[in-house]
């Protein structure tokens, strides 16, 4: 069964003036179809304003479709009685680590979700411990979130979602405000959760290097899905990606330029080693 199924989704931000007349309509998402299988690691790429964050908010039932339907775990997000179950099963991590931590102590923040779900006290403690361990933050459990680095805060936010025992995590540009170290920590943490706990991951990002290990990549532009496939397939389309204002990883770009210059190098190179190997094969 599909974890997330999006069918002909469209969403409009409507701007009204003071009298309530419609001033302008911005169609942020325009006819998106998307299937995510359980246990998949999905990446959604797109430049600013491509509609990728709007899409993410639909999966967590924070926004409701203007047209079309979104199913999460078989539940329709447009039906009000499903909201809480959807928000539990598809947790969401946001961009700014400071603005999503509620409590003044790490462990209490992780316990916030289970508290809202009405989980008994003893079980909250077990879940908090397990979730903090899963993101490797157990030693910081008594600290104030203000004393943590950006990457650590983001891992606490992920633990806060994990404590609600979700089947799926949606991450909306979780690394945009982090330094490279914090970025690596967060990305490797979500890969670990994907592999060990079989959590479906939907990673929204504009950092190309983060999508290389994804199972499937969707590229969005102007509210539509314009490319989809494996990372290798996506990165073969350097020209197209550039026209969507996206950068490709350095190696891929170098390989692409060399290929364009006439060297015999395969399309869609993702790793440095690959390029080295391909270059080695070329006979002088």
């Amino acid at each position, binding site marked *: 069964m599909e974890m997330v199924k999006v069918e002909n989704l469209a969403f409009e931000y409507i701007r009204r003036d003071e009298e309530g007349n419609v001033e302008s309509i911005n169609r942020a998402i325009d006819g998106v179809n998307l299937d995510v299988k359980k246990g998949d690691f999905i990446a959604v790429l797109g430049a600013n304003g491509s509609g990728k964050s709007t899409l993410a908010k639909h999966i967590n039932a924070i926004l409701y479709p203007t047209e079309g339907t979104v199913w999460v775990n078989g539940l329709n997000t447009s039906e009000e009685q499903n909201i*809480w179950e959807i928000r539990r099963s598809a947790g969401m991590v946001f961009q700014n680590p400071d603005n999503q931590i509620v409590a003044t102590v790490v462990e209490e923040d992780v316990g916030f979700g289970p508290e809202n779900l009405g989980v008994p006290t003893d079980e909250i403690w077990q879940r908090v411990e397990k979730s903090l361990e899963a993101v490797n933050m157990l030693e910081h459990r008594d600290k104030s979130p203000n004393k943590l680095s950006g990457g650590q805060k983001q891992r606490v936010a992920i633990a806060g979602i994990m404590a609600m025992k979700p089947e799926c995590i949606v991450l909306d540009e979780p690394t945009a405000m982090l330094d490279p170290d914090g970025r690596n920590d967060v990305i490797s943490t979500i890969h670990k959760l994907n592999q060990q706990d079989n959590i479906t991951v939907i990673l929204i990002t504009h950092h190309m290097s983060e999508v290389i290990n994804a199972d499937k990549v969707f590229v969005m532009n102007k509210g539509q899905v314009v490319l989809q496939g494996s990372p290798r397939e996506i990165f073969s389309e350097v020209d197209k990606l550039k026209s969507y204002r996206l950068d490709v990883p350095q190696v891929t770009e170098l390989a692409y330029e060399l290929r364009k210059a006439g060297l015999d190098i395969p399309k869609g190179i993702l790793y440095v080693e690959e390029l080295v190997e391909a270059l080695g094969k070329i006979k002088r």
Partner: protein
Amino acid sequence: MIRDITIGQYYPADSILHRLDPRLKLNGTLIFIISIFLFNTFYGYIAVTIFLASIIKMSKVPFKFIARGLKAIIVILLFTMTFNLLLTPGDVLLQVGFLKITRQGLHSALFMGIRLTYLILGSSLMTFTTTPNQLTDGLERLLWPLRRIKVPVHEIAMMMSIALRFIPILLEETDKIMKAQMARGADFESGGIIKRAKGLVPLLVPLFVSAFRRANDLAMAMEARCYRGGEGRTKMKPLRYEGRDGLAYIVLLAYLAVVIVISIFEDRLPVIL
């Protein structure tokens, strides 16, 4: 400068006072505050001083640290004392021009001074020994009955704890904006009060904008984590009274009894001032 004010801060230490239930500490502070205002002679202060000194000792919070909290109210303190000293009618002790110091004035000035000082010492001792979270939890539980008359108790407690979480973040942000504005020639330090107040506008506007944005983000993040108010919520750290809390309540009531007895019989004792 803001960092010098110690009122409302938490001082981490391992003491009996730190381990007590926050509800007890809130009630205790209330009882203490009432007790300072119960009597009119200095005999009562003997009991109050002994009580305050012993709980300060028990709290393991350095007295210097607690006393720093008084800095914040020193202006109010001096004002009240001066006005009481100079404006109370009665038996004149000293007269300079139109200013008179009376015996009653001296009495009430000293009383006010001591009362205010003890008030601050006592209540800041509560915040020093209680984490902000425990404090809001305690308040929530104590005010719980008010829900009957439609007071949004849970919401108030949640607002308080969120405010506490964001104070350091907003302070840091203020600092950042200030530096950014100074780098572009803003002047926060020179000029009179009006000029300085005007200078704060370019600081406050971005600060407010960012605070609202943060509030919006946080509300979304809380909803995404299934927050829907206090109904059906469980607690990770529920408040439970322990044996030591019962003991502390007995001590508190005994203290209150002593103070009440003093206030009844103080008239029969020789007058000090």
